């Protein structure tokens, strides 16, 4: 096991960040999914030894992470928030940190890491001039420069444009293919799905689900999905959509119809044809359940 947490607790004053979390993480890529404030970052910071747990036990690579420099150099951490020596160049930053982590030839390690994250072109520019995507790559570069066994990535794709996102996903998968274990957190399910099949879901400090992505998806899909369609002919549209049992509840409001469906994928696939048949002009489609908070709430209740 890479990480073994047993009834892990963490509180900040009266606020409980982690509540009796028992979780084992094995080799490969594991996703840690949860909305903002769920406790993901708190868990990751305890895993890497930056923060001390308030209760329970945690072992990483068989050792306690707190105040353990010998273990710390076996881990690579990519934090969520930016924290750089802005006056340094990217190359200097990665090289300095590699040396602090005991790498003999910091410059060579930095060169390799920077090439791996495709930051070579801007490596000799000051970090203060870097874009969001470059900063994310730089954080990844410093995390891998000292060749750690275990990577902990806190929301590595947040704020990145789709192209950078794809490149970072490919990079992370490449690192895992080299034999590194990776624990990556996100609040976006499809980001995690692009990286791994194994996920743990946290919500309000609790572990609410753990397992294969397909199992979690099935759990989510069992929960009826609410959709609001703003249209000029709500009743006609509702009649078409309700005809084959994909809709379990309908409610009308001025200029719109609210529908609940247990099969959202099939529903969305049918919607354009139904609108055409009904002669309805669809102005807007929205879903309060598209936010992860609603999903996590459901998982917690389940």
């Amino acid at each position: 096991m890479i990480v073994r947490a047993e009834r892990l607790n963490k509180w900040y004053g009266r606020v409980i960040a982690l509540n009796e979390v028992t979780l084992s993480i094995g080799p490969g890529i594991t996703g840690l999914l949860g909305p903002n404030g769920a406790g993901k970052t708190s868990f990751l910071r305890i895993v890497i030894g930056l923060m001390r747990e308030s209760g329970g036990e945690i072992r990483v690579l068989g050792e306690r992470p707190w105040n353990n420099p010998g273990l710390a150099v076996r881990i690579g951490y990519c934090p969520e928030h930016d924290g750089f020596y802005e006056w340094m160049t990217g190359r200097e930053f990665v090289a300095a940190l590699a040396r602090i982590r005991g790498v003999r030839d910091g410059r060579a390690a930095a060169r390799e890491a920077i090439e791996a994250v495709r930051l070579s072109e801007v490596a000799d520019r000051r970090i203060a001039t870097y874009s969001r995507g470059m900063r994310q790559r730089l954080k990844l570069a410093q995390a891998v420069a000292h060749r750690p066994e275990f990577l902990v990535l806190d929301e590595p794709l947040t704020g990145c444009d789709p192209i950078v996102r794809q490149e970072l996903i490919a990079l992370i998968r490449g690192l895992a293919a080299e034999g590194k274990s990776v624990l990556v957190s996100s609040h976006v399910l499809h980001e995690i799905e692009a990286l791994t099949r194994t996920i743990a879901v946290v919500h309000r400090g609790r572990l609410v689900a753990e397992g294969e992505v397909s199992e979690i998806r099935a759990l989510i899909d069992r929960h009826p999905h609410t959709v609001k369609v703003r249209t000029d002919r709500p009743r006609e549209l509702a009649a078409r959509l309700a005809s084959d049992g994909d809709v379990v509840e309908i409610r009308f409001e001025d200029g719109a119809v609210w529908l609940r469906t247990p099969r959202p994928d099939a529903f969305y696939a049918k919607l354009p044809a139904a609108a055409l048949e009904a002669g309805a002009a669809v102005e807007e489609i929205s879903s309060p359940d598209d936010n992860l908070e609603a999903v996590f709430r459901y998982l917690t209740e389940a």
Partner: protein
Amino acid sequence: MLRAAAAFAGLTLRSLASGKRAPAAAILLLLPAVLALLAATLGRKAEAATVFHHVVFHYSLGFMVYLLSIVYGIALSSGEIEDGTVGYLYLGRLPRWLIVGVQAGVTALALTGLVFLSLLLTALASGLAPGEGPRLWRDVGACTLVAGTGILVALPFYMACGLVFRTPIGAVASALVPTLFWELLVTGWPIQFAAWTVTNNLRGLLLVLLFDGRPGPLYKYVKNFRIPGYEEASIYLSVLAGLFLVLAMAAASARSIEGKEAR
């Protein structure tokens, strides 16, 4: 580990010269020379050596040492936690107590070097006044030694404040309150406790190194207490420096680095 420590010392040194702190430090370090220049050129009865002694006694050792130590002490602790760079440092090969030790040592040395330059400029500026000037290398050297001692005591104390208190504001407040009250006020009070301030102990060192043991007009404020002797002051300041350093190391080892999400 030695290699990692050396690399970290280099990083600390580079950090000192960069960022927002450098201009503030430059102003603090140049101010005594400016004050000396003004006194030497505009003061009617100012004598060169007297100008130098007054500026060093009241400003360099009274304010500058503490302000410099607060600026860098808080930045090295609370500042690095706040800006997120501490996470990278604490995930290295060095244990936290050693990180604090290296930071304190490198910073104290660097600041002492800068104070030497500041005092040299002050001595040169004072020399523009009439009369016998300070004994350049001896007096500047002696004052640097005393100021360096003050930095060695104050810097770890302020680092400890930055590591114990959760926010930079809390750290600055915890640093400023004892400094303002104890060092700046109590130092001049006619009470026995005044002998225990760092400032009066530094002045005890200065009395021997600069004034050859002869307390002149600058020491007229001393009432109802005795300025500590050279040995007493050395022991007291060494103990304080050691205590504060151990406190800072312990605080670093015990400090959970909570992210911005914890607030």
